[in-house]
């Protein structure tokens, strides 16, 4: 086995070279019913992702729960079989490689998991866990497995003497370090980390973030870091992909994303994060989205965000916006991007909710296959969708003849809530009603 020694001394791809290329990646999980397990639908977890990961960079993937970011992570590490699209690693198509042909590649692609409690086998010692990759790949590192494992443990900040301990003897942060040591054992090129710090306490979180930073610098690693915490993502990433319901809505470098977001969803997401600064309380331009993310089983037609977007117009309900590079290195999928000229100017604003005795009129099934062309139909369709998925938090009055904006933005009322909320829902305007600066004092 020792003839495999050489394999650990890998040729590092030059920084900036494309390491991973994903094109039109799709994963649908079938929903089956009945005795014959007939497929009746599909959870469209990931629905057409295209992006590159360059060597030496960190790509952050951020989104709300259920947007498909973890599924994406498992697809590019080939822990799941993609339904469609291609994944290329170092120019080689790995989309449908079988387990055996994937095995040599596992040395180059490793994963760090979210939950440090369930991702370590409680019956194995730390030594066994961290040396498992060597055993599976039939590699004997120089100086023997034990010495190498101890070196790795030391590298991630654990005591090498703890080789014979069991996972339960470690705290959450230490377990996460064990997971990192295991991922690094084979000196991978690409590490996919799925929520690497979200299960950890703040002070421990910082230790692990710093460790990941150091390792990247030292070993020239490439990371894909999946997280829901926008602050962590801002800290660790070079480029960031924002996902919504199985699609990338915006992909750009860190600076442009946080300073000049172009997709309304990104903007709303950023504005929703509580800032640890009491002086800025109530002075922020906050956009509150209504309701929850729609179900990925029957995602909205057109732009998937249109049910919650305050800028949505008719075209958004029928035509899916492609992911376009509107500026160099700044890709956005939106018909009406922020910080940029409108791509579909003059499009009819999404019509008002038809009201009849305070109730929303329902005329069409929510997922009608027929393309909705008339504005009224689309509006009704959208109106139907929202309550069905509980996508709006508006009160009953919101649907009164006052013509509530569909999926519009709720105010962040500073002081008098009920009044402000009522006002907001009656506002026919399409633009978000925002909190007035300074009004929240007291």
């Amino acid at each position, binding site marked *: 086995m020792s003839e495999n020694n050489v394999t650990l001394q890998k040729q590092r791809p030059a920084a900036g070279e494309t390491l991973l290329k994903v094109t039109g990646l799709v994963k649908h999980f079938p929903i089956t019913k009945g005795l014959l397990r007939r497929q009746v639908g599909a959870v469209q977890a990931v629905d057409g992702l295209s992006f590159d990961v360059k060597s030496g960079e960190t790509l952050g993937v951020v989104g*709300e*729960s259920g947007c498909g970011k973890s599924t994406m992570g498992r697809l590019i590490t080939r822990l799941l079989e993609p339904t469609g699209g291609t994944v290329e690693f170092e120019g080689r198509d790995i989309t449908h490689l079988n387990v055996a042909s994937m095995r040599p590649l596992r040395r180059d692609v490793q994963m760090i998991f979210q939950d440090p409690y369930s991702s370590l086998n409680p019956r194995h010692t730390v030594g066994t866990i961290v040396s498992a990759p060597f055993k599976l790949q039939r590699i004997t590192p120089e100086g023997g497995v034990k010495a190498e494992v101890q070196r790795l443990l030391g590298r991630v900040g654990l005591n090498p003497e703890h080789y014979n301990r069991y996972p339960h003897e470690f705290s959450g942060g230490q377990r996460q370090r064990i997971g990192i040591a295991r991922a690094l054992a084979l000196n991978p090129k690409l590490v996919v980390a799925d929520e690497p710090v979200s299960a950890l306490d*703040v002070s421990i979180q*910082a*230790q692990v973030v710093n460790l990941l930073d150091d390792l990247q610098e030292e070993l020239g690693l490439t990371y894909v870091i999946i997280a*829901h915490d926008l*602050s962590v993502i801002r800290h660790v990433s070079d480029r960031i992909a924002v996902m919504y319901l199985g699609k990338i809505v915006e992909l750009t470098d860190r600076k442009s994303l946080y300073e000049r977001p172009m997709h309304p969803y990104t903007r709303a997401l950023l504005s929703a994060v509580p*800032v640890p600064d009491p002086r800025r309380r109530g002075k922020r331009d906050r956009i*509150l989205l209504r309701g929850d993310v729609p179900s990925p089983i029957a995602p909205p037609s057109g732009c998937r965000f249109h049910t919650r977007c305050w800028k949505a117009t008719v075209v958004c309900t029928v035509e899916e916006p492609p992911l376009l590079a509107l500026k160099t290195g700044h890709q956005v999928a939106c018909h009406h991007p922020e910080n940029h000229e409108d791509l579909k100017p003059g499009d009819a604003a999404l019509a008002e909710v038809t009201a009849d005795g305070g109730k929303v009129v329902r005329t069409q099934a929510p997922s009608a296959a027929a393309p909705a062309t008339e504005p009224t139909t689309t509006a009704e369709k959208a109106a139907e969708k929202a309550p069905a998925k509980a996508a709006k938090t508006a009160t009953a009055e919101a649907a009164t003849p006052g013509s509530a904006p569909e999926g519009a933005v709720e105010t962040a009322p500073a002081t008098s*809530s009920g009044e402000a909320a009522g006002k907001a829902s009656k506002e026919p305007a399409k633009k978000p009603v925002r909190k007035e600066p300074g009004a929240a004092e007291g």
Partner: protein
Amino acid sequence: MTTESTPGAGGAVSKADGRPSTGAVTKASGRPARRAGAVGEPTTAGAPGTDVFLDVRDLKVHFPTDDGLVKSVDGLSFQLERGKTLGIVGESGSGKSVTSLGIMGLHTVGQYGRGKARISGEIWFDGTDLLAAHPDEVRRLRGREMAMIFQDPLSAMHPYFTVGAQIVEAYRVHHKVDKKKARRRAVELLDRVGIPQPDRRVDDYPHQFSGGMRQRAMIAMALANNPELLIADEPTTALDVTVQAQILDLIRDLQTEFGSAVIVITHDLGVVAELADDILVMYGGRCVERGPAERVFYEPQHPYTWGLLGSMPRIDRDQTDRLIPVHGSPPSLINVPQGCAFNPRCPYADVPADNRTRTERPELKEVGSRHFSACHMTQEERTRIWTEEIAPKL
């Protein structure tokens, strides 16, 4: 009997549902009855003009286990005024939730096979010492005067009953009204917290609600009786940011509307900065720093608070430098370090002379107006370290 077994009527309906109603407050064994002597004290506690109505004094909650005595909360004191929000921050295991359950009187004797909690100290709530009061008295207050929002709404709500039924129950425990009226109240509450079509959703079961809506329903349940004190234990931890923003706004609005005092327990400094007037930082079961939010964020006076601020990635700044983590891990509550509990992790443990940090436990000392810190360093030393070493790196 249903009403009897519902001590946590406010938000805790299902937690207690169907389980034997044990005495809500377990007192430390051998503690002398202090009720007679202590009556009237709380009014003297607050400075003139303030409206202190929750006054926690030297609260201790200890759990005997096979491994030793777990001192989850070990001498905690704070006051809360009507209409104000207190944010309790700390890492997991610092005693935040145990404190809130202690105030609600939800630590019980031998329930779930766990050891009984030994509670001592005083919790003055609007003139009543909750720890000395009769369990019936506490039960009357709980849900009506004080209510709680739990972290995980799915496990805090009963899966067998509709959301409406659980709110109705919370309301009818404390109000003698018929079912129709109570149901109307439930619809009204669901409407108030922003559930669409409340008259229809009232008959839904918890699993039919999304995460954010469940949390809203929990808030509705907690508000059923217009409580004076609302305790929110990690109210948004399980939620996505967009939903979190909705819930935080809702809590803030309801507070202004109902004028209740709110205790928000969280590990997220962002949430605290959004909501709290005062902040209490807990470490190892004790308060290490307490003060107005502005001061705690801008002139923190305890190395642990510095550590928390330094280890937090900031969304509002493009900071690419390394984070400044707190080294080591939180202490075991069975063997809390001698002296200052933070000393093994504190980079400044050697600043005070004669090794005091390792031998003597620092007491909370006033370091500014309503601002307290438990640290052996002198205020000059702390101010110098903060302004010269810590603040520029944040």
